């Protein structure tokens, strides 16, 4: 009878071990998701090097299987074998070193890369021994039009900052805004009466209301793609209303001074002329002019003064 409970116990133990094994297997599979290779599009980029260095820029906006094809026409040495390897951002990629034969007066090398995240972007180079190098710069589409002069606005006023991606480049999935605080970036969230963000395809607009002195600084807009984000900076400068008031008041003071001076001068000048004219005709015409006309002349003079 003692052997009877040993067997089910043993079976239960076996079952538990098996289950645990199965469990860990399933757990393991969820921890390392395998993206099926067939879901990614494949792009081939090739470059031919005739000298010593060449740079090729590749713009990517979504995950791809990238095949890079390097061709080198060789140099004077024309070695039959040359060892080549790939580097990413200056560091050699493991398991990429191989030896290439000289065929048809050139060396050809191909390598596949899976570009799925922002870490995969960068500067890939195929290095031919110590002689030659072709650089492939993989990047998200860059925002072309950046405003190099700061946007100026006033305390208490509102300001609108624009970012625009060229429509020849792929449309960003969305846009995000950051405020640069030293080396950190703080994400700007929509707040009523303060921050408003409008995204429209290739354009984005950040409206900041009730500006204060702390709002001045550098703002970054980011065009978000599936593979990464492309950033651009805009500088915002907040000034008080006194700044433009200074030239305004200077010019206004000059205008008032000049106008008063000129009008005073003209008044004195015309009064002098009137007294001269009154004296001259009165001297000559005391006996000649009839009373009425003399009165008229004086009347005219006084009216003239009134007009000026």
């Amino acid at each position, binding site marked *: 009878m003692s052997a009877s409970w040993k067997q089910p116990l043993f079976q239960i133990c076996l079952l538990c071990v098996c289950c645990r094994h199965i469990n860990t297997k399933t757990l393991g599979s969820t921890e390392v998701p395998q993206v099926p290779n067939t879901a990614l599009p494949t792009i081939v980029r090739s470059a031919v090097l005739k000298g010593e260095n060449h740079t090729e820029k590749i713009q990517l906006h979504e995950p791809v299987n990238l095949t890079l094809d390097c061709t080198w026409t060789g140099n004077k040495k024309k070695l039959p074998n040359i060892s080549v390897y790939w580097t990413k951002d200056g560091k050699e990629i493991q398991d990429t070193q191989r030896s290439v034969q000289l065929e048809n007066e050139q060396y050809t090398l191909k390598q596949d890369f899976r570009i799925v995240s922002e870490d995969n972007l960068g500067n890939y180079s195929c290095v031919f021994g110590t002689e030659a190098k072709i650089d492939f710069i993989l990047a998200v589409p860059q925002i072309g039009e950046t405003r190099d*002069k700061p*946007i*100026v*606005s*006033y305390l208490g*006023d509102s*300001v*609108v900052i*624009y970012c625009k991606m060229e429509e020849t480049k792929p449309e960003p999935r969305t846009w995000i805004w950051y405020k640069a605080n030293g080396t950190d970036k703080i994400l700007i969230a929509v707040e009523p009466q303060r921050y408003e963000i409008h995204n429209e395809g290739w354009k984005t*607009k950040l409206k900041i209301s009730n500006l204060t002195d702390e709002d001045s600084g550098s703002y970054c807009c980011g065009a978000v793609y599936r593979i990464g984000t492309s950033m651009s900076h805009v500088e915002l400068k907040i*000034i008080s209303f006194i*700044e*433009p*008031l200074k*030239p*305004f*008041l*200077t*010019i*206004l003071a000059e*205008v008032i001074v*000049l*106008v008063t001076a*000129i*009008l005073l001068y*003209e008044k004195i000048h015309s009064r002098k002329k009137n007294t001269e*004219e009154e004296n001259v*005709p009165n001297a000559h015409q005391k006996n000649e002019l009839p009373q009425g*006309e003399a009165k*008229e*002349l004086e*009347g*005219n003079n006084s*009216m*003239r003064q009134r*007009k*000026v």
Partner: protein
Amino acid sequence: MAAGKQRDGRGAPPDGGWGWVIVGCCFMVTVCTRAVTRCVSIFFVEFQTHFGADYAATAWIHSLLDCSTMLCAPVGSLVGSRWSCRAAVLVGGLLASCGLLLSSFATSLEMLYFSAGILTGLGFALCYTPAIALVGCYFQRRKALAYGVAMSGSGIGTFVLAPVVQMLIELYSWRGALLVLSAFVANLCVCGALLRPIALQEQQCGRCSCQSHVHSAGQSESDSPVCSGAGDHSQQDMEKPPKDSVDLLAPPESSAPKLRRMWRLLSCGEYRFLLLPDFLGLAVSFLFLASGCSLPFVYLVPYALSAGISHQHAAFLMSILGVIDIVGNITFGWLTDRRCLKPYRLACYVFSVGMEGLCCLFTPLLRSFPLLVPFAVLYGYFDGAYVALIPVVTSDVVGSTYLSSALGVVYFLHAIPYLVSPPIGGWLVDVTGSYTATFFLSGAALLASAVILSAVTGICRRRHQSDSVLLPSSENRHQGTRAPPPQSV
């Protein structure tokens, strides 16, 4: 009274002296009005960003400003005649400055329409016509040169103000820039203070050139009383009111129809020149001129871009246009003052407008930068030429007395075509898909203007010649012909 005035010795236009100060003031007035109007378009990008509007909505500001400057020109000339040029320009400068000051605090695009469009435009209108009219009173012999220098203000002003306004926007944003610009426009008050009124001799008050009208008005020598209250702003204003205007001032008869009263106002008042066939022909030709002349300025750059010329080259074309405009102003003014050309001033004006029209007609054939440069040079030169000659030709036709009111009417006639023709040109571009139709329209309008003016002048002159044969010789001497009176040469 006439005897007393001659003893004053203030008869002839000085043709110099304080006249050059007046020319300088008119130059500043043109800078502050026309150049500032053109520079307002630099603010459009800022307005679009700040108010979230599109280009068409912001372009209305410029159209409103231009249109109200021209539409209110008669108001300006009326104020200049009734009171004085000085008062008109002072008030105008204040209004324009206030308008721009209000705009710098604008919270919506509609407020900008009112303050920067209508208010500022009214202020500019009060300044523009009186200043130009006063230059005509101060010059006789060198009138065209004086006008050339005075009108070159718009070209030189645009050239200088455009980068300054751009720099102001970068330093202070559009609000601060408008604030500083309003202080700059306040300099119109300084110019206004310098506009000293002048008294002119009766004979120089100018006569109706078409003799038939002189007879129908029933006055020949006694034209002079009508000079009172018109463009001279002199002591003539203070003379005893003439018989005709006494009739006007008398309480209107209850049975007199409104039409008869208006006719009396027209035929005997300040606006009697409106009935001159010469002036009517001139007015119709100005309508066509204004319809055609603004289109090339608006559509040259888009046309050049569509023909494959780069942005920088297209901007360079506009700069060439602007600079040669200034050259045309001054040199053509100087040229038409030469003794040999002075009798043919109207012909020179017709020639320059005709040449502009021809240039426009040939434009659709010019599809590269080296070909468009001569077009820009020629068009710019003749554009400057006719702009300098408009006040001269007007004063030749109506005389110095009515110059202020006539200029008011002339610029009023410019208003609606300026407002309407760029959108029509744009509609033509949209409908036909190319700029050919727009340039043809512009060229045709300019040529029509030249043809109408030469036709009307020819007919009037022929009628004048046939009438002068019938008249006794003594009255011939007193007719104001197109040839200048002997003393002015």
